[in-house]
C-alpha cells in the first residue's frame, strides 16, 4: 500500500510561496498528473515528497508512514528529474543500474532489469555510451529508464517527455500508460502538455501559484473547469469567455452583445440570484457550430482568420467585440470576412463569476 497524502504542505522561498498549504490525496496505484503554468510549484511539490526540499509546514504520508522527516533514500520512491540529472561519469548502463546497485541486487538481475528498461525506452544501442555522447532526448530517456527500473511503489516524474520529438513522445506516452497498467506504481507526473495530462492521468490536479485549484478526472476538468483559469488553461485552443449581464427582470437570461442567452433549467436558480450583475459565459470552441439564422442561443460572429488543420478548421472570430476561437468540421465552407450565426447548446455553457472567475453552479 503506497497511497500518498499531502496535508497542508507549505514551502516558502523568501517571498515566493511555492507550496501554499497544498492538501492532496493520491490513491494507491493511481496516476496523478500535476498540470499548471511555469513556476506554479509543481517541481517543489515533488521535491518535498522526495525529501529533497524540507517543508515549512504540514505533513506528508506515503501509505500510512509519515515521511515528512525521512531522508530521501528512506522514502522508497523513484524520481525522474526535470533536469534529467544523468550522471556524466557513468555509462548509460551504469546510470540505469545505479539504484539497483545501491540496493545490492545480484549482478544478473541488474543486467536483466537494465536491459528491460533500456528496451522500453529504446536505448539498447546506447548502453555503453556516456551521457555526453547522447542527444538531449536520449539523455532524458536514460533518466526515465533509471527511475522506472527501480520498480518503486511510488514513481515521480517531472516532465519526463518534454524534450522528445513529437512522434517519440506519442510512443512514449503510450508506453508509459502500458507500463503503469502493468506495475501499478502510485505515480505523480508533472507536465505542461495537456494532451499528455488528459491521456495519462487517472486524475489531474491543476495548480496555480502554489495552490491546487482543481483536482478531478480528466473529463471533468475539461468539461467542468472550476474557474476561468482552469478553462483557459486546458484545451487547445482553450475555452472562450464572453462578457455578459444577467437580465434584471423576467425569466433570467444573459445578455451578450445583441443576443439573449437562456440558461438550462438547472442553471436558472444560480443566475436568478445574480440579476443585473455582470457574468462570464464560457464555451469550448468545438461546442460552437454555424447556424443558418438567428434562433435560440445564437451569437453573431465575424470570421477573421480561417486555419485549416486537417481534422478540423480553426476559426478566429469577433463576437460582440471580443475575440474567440471556433472549431468547425473540415468541410464547412467559410472564408475570412464572413458574418455568420453561431449556435450552441445551453448545457455546454459554463457560467463564471465576472469578479472571482469561479464557476457558478
Amino acid at each position: 500500500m503506497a497511497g500518498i497524502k499531502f496535508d497542508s504542505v507549505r514551502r516558502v522561498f523568501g517571498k515566493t510561496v511555492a507550496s501554499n498549504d497544498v492538501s492532496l490525496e493520491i490513491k494507491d496505484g493511481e496516476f496523478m498528473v500535476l498540470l499548471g503554468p511555469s513556476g506554479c510549484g509543481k517541481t517543489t511539490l515533488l521535491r518535498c515528497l522526495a525529501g529533497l526540499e524540507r517543508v515549512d509546514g504540514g505533513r506528508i504520508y506515503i501509505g500510512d508512514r509519515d515521511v515528512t522527516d525521512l531522508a530521501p533514500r528512506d522514502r522508497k520512491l523513484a524520481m525522474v528529474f526535470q533536469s534529467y540529472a544523468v550522471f556524466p561519469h557513468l555509462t548509460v548502463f551504469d546510470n540505469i543500474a545505479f539504484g539497483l546497485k545501491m540496493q545490492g541486487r545480484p549482478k544478473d538481475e541488474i543486467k536483466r532489469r537494465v536491459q528491460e528498461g533500456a528496451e522500453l525506452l529504446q536505448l539498447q544501442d546506447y548502453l555503453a555510451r556516456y551521457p555526453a555522447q547522447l542527444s538531449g532526448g536520449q539523455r532524458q530517456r536514460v533518466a526515465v529508464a533509471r527511475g522506472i527500473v527501480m520498480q518503486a511503489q511510488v514513481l515521480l516524474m517531472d516532465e519526463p517527455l518534454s524534450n522528445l520529438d513529437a512522434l517519440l513522445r506519442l510512443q512514449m506516452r503510450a508506453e508509459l500508460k502500458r507500463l503503469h497498467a502493468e506495475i501499478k506504481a502510485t505515480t505523480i507526473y508533472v507536465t505542461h502538455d495537456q494532451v499528455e495530462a488528459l491521456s495519462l492521468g487517472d486524475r489531474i490536479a491543476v495548480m496555480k501559484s502554489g495552490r491546487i485549484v482543481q483536482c478531478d478526472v480528466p473529463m471533468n476538468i475539461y468539461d467542468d473547469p472550476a474557474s476561468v483559469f482552469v478553462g483557459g488553461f486546458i484545451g487547445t485552443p482553450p475555452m472562450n469567455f464572453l462578457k455578459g449581464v444577467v437580465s434584471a427582470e423576467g425569466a433570467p437570461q444573459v445578455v451578450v452583445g445583441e443576443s439573449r442567452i437562456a440558461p438550462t433549467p438547472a442553471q436558472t436558480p444560480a443566475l436568478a440570484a445574480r440579476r443585473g450583475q455582470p457574468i462570464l459565459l464560457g464555451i469550448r470552441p468545438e461546442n460552437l457550430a454555424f447556424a443558418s439564422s438567428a434562433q435560440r442561443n445564437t451569437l453573431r460572429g465575424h470570421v477573421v482568420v480561417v486555419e485549416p488543420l486537417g481534422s478540423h478548421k480553426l476559426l478566429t472570430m469577433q463576437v460582440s467585440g471580443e475575440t474567440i476561437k471556433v472549431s468547425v468540421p473540415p468541410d464547412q465552407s467559410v472564408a475570412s470576412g464572413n458574418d455568420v450565426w453561431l449556435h450552441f447548446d445551453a448545457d455546454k455553457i459554463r457560467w463564471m463569476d465576472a469578479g472571482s472567475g469561479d464557476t457558478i453552479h
Partner: protein
Amino acid sequence: MESSLAISRGAKRAPIAWRHVRDQVGLYGAAILLALWTLAPIYLIALSAFSTKAGVSAWPKSLLPTNFSTDTMQFFINSKGVLQSVGNSVVVALLTIAASLLLGAPGGYALARFRFKGKQTIQLSFLISKMFPTAILSVPLAVTFLQLGLYDTVWGVALIHTAMALPFVILLTAGIFVGVPRDLEEAAQTLGCTRMQAFVRVVLPLALPALAAAAIFTFVISWNEVFAATIITLQHRTLPAQVLSSLNDSPLYYRFAGGFFMIVPALIFIFLIRKYLLNMWGSVVR
C-alpha cells in the same frame, strides 16, 4: 530596400572593424609586455643555469645559449644538503596537500552547497588572513614551535604551509563543487544513497580532476615558500630555505642553478592546472 540596408550596414561596419583591430592590438601588446616582464628573468636564469661555470660570469652576456653545458646544474645538485632538502621539500609539500585538502575541501563544499549566516564574511576573512606578513608572525611562531617541539621538523613547516594554502584551497574547492550540479547528488540520494555515499559516488569522481589541480596548486605554494621555512628550520631545510641560507657563501652559478631548479616544477604544474586556477574567482561569487 534590401540593398540600401546592406550598404548602410557596410558603412557602419568599417569603423567597428577598425576599432576591433585597435583593441586587439592593444590587448595583445599589453599581454606580451606583461609576459615578457615575467618570462625574461626566467629565461636569463635558465640561460645561466645551462652555461659553463665561467660563462655565468662572462661579460658582455650573449642572449643565446652559446656555451651550453650541464656542469652548473650538476654542481648544484651534487652540493651538500641539496638532495636532502629536495626530499624535505617533497615531504613537506605532500603533508601540506593532505592536510589542506582534508581541511579545505569540506569547507569548500559547505560554501558551495549551503546557505548560512555570515557566508560572505567568512569568505572574505579567508583572504584577510593573507594580509598579515609572515615576518610579523615569525618570532612568536618560532617560539611557539620550539615549545611544541615542532621546531626544525618537516611537520612544523607543513603546518605553516597548510595555514597558508588553506584559504586558496577552500575557495578553489568551493568553485569546484559549485561546478558539480546539485541535482546529481539529489538524484543519487533518491536512488538510495546517503549524503555521504552520494558525495563519494557522484560528486567526488566528477570533481577529481579539479581536486587534483587544487592539490598541485598547493604543492606549488609549499614548494616555493621560503620565509617561514627558513625561520623554523635549521637542519631540516626545504630546498628554498637551503638555497637561501647558502646564498651568501655560494658562487654565482650555484645561485642560478638553484633558482632554475626551483622554478621548473612550479612552472610545469601551474601550466598543467591553469584552467582550474581561472575558475577560482569566477564561480564561487554567485
